[in-house]
């Protein structure tokens, strides 16, 4: 357990078990009388029409793509930010160059209309 990841693993396991306990307790205590009206899909009182797993609009996908690009950029910037205190000014300017290349990407996406919620 030198660097603590065993602790995190155990934390995940216990952290999943602990919220399950109220659910199990509820299963003992709560009534269970299912019928078809109760189990129908909720749509403000109207009967549902068609499939529930509908197709989704393209802008959701576009936002996820733009998020992906910037998330990878941010993760790649982590070692730069970590080591910046110990390295000379030139390294800061190199990191800024990297950021500026990706800012150009953001400006491109903006001008192309990818950031609109259409």
């Amino acid at each position: 357990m030198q660097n603590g990841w065993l602790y995190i693993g155990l934390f995940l396991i216990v952290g999943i078990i602990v919220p399950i306990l109220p659910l199990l307790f509820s299963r003992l205590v709560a009534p269970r009388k299912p019928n078809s009206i109760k189990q129908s899909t909720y749509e403000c009182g109207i009967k549902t029409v068609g499939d529930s797993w509908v197709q989704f609009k393209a802008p959701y996908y576009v936002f996820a793509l733009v998020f992906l690009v910037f998330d990878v950029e941010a993760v790649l910037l982590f070692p730069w930010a970590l080591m910046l205190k110990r390295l000379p000014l030139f390294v800061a300017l190199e990191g800024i160059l990297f950021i500026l290349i990706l800012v150009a990407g953001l400006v491109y996406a903006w001008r192309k209309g990818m950031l609109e919620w259409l």
Partner: protein
Amino acid sequence: MNLLNDPIHFIAQWLQGLLTGWGLSLVLAKVILALISITVTILFAMALAIFLVWVERKVVARFQDRIGPNRIGPYGLFQPLADIIKLIGKEDITPALADKFVYNLAPVLALASVILLWAILPLAPNIYGVDLNVAVLYLVAAGALGTLSIIMAGWASNNKYALLGAFRTVANMISYEIPMVLVLLIPTLLAGTMSVKGITEAQSPTWFFFLSPLGALIFLISAVAELGRSPFDLSEAESEIVAGFHIEYTGMKFGLFYAGELLHAFTFGGFTAVLFFGGYRFFGLENLGPLVAAAIFLVKAMFGYWIIMWIKYTMPRIRIDHMLAFNWKFLTPLALTVLMVTAVMEKLLAGTSPWIYSLGLFLANLAIALATIEILHAFGKWQRKTEASTKPALQAGQYYEEQNP
């Protein structure tokens, strides 16, 4: 190391000696100690979540000029207990054709993702779960698990509107993760380490809030949007679109989502305190003992939670296209600018005295803020001018459609 200064390690050493004395191997003793520590931390977090339900209801009541729950127990303190008893007793209605495993896993994962964050939160110099050396990255990763649970909830509910609500909420959350991760780089940069304990220790002369107020502000806004709380909660507006991705959840499963959201807000208040407001430090008072340091940390975290609640109960809801435009067209460029300027200023002012360092970084942030306001001002003026030139003026009593029949 005695009981007063270092209680956790003292008890851990004693227990370890006890367990190995009974004949267990060292690894097994360490695992049992870890499990005890984990259980205590998780129970503390859950008890805090229950207390926060009461705080939330009292504070929202005061913001709305009423008293809030005051019947059950003194000052309504046992109200959350009554809520829990009610929620446990409700019938658990699973919609027909729902994806059972995913449907049941989603609320558990939502709460688990918040509880996971309590492993790295330092309450005092010697009270913390584990001192990871990549704690900031772990914060982002555990937060992403909560986003996953929302899509699971929306998808498995077999309900078109839950699915759409889940998509919108997740599009919102992932968009606001970008400024959050970028601004998390600023304490990493200023402290030279990713471990939260290291960041707390590195805030010696000045808190990072004074070195980078814009960073703290962007972190707060992104955290509020990340939590899916008002004013960014269009997809799960309790009073408008009937509850979004958790329409089909009843009873304790809904209770887990709700408690998870409140605990998440408090945890982010705690992280704001640790990353920007000095954590458990307060002019040397934390050396008086671990309980004093933990009290200081909890007060700061509660202050952060108070600000989040204040924002929620004061501002109206923002439309989803405004939310996303605000993020991609304003917060992300601003976060990138603050990061670049902080990096350059940090290198330029590296060896100077702490006062000049702090003043230099603070003035740089102030300059960025003023420049941003000027740019927005000029943009607004330009927009009004172009609109006035393309739209002819209205006569009295005329509508826009009448002008061009």
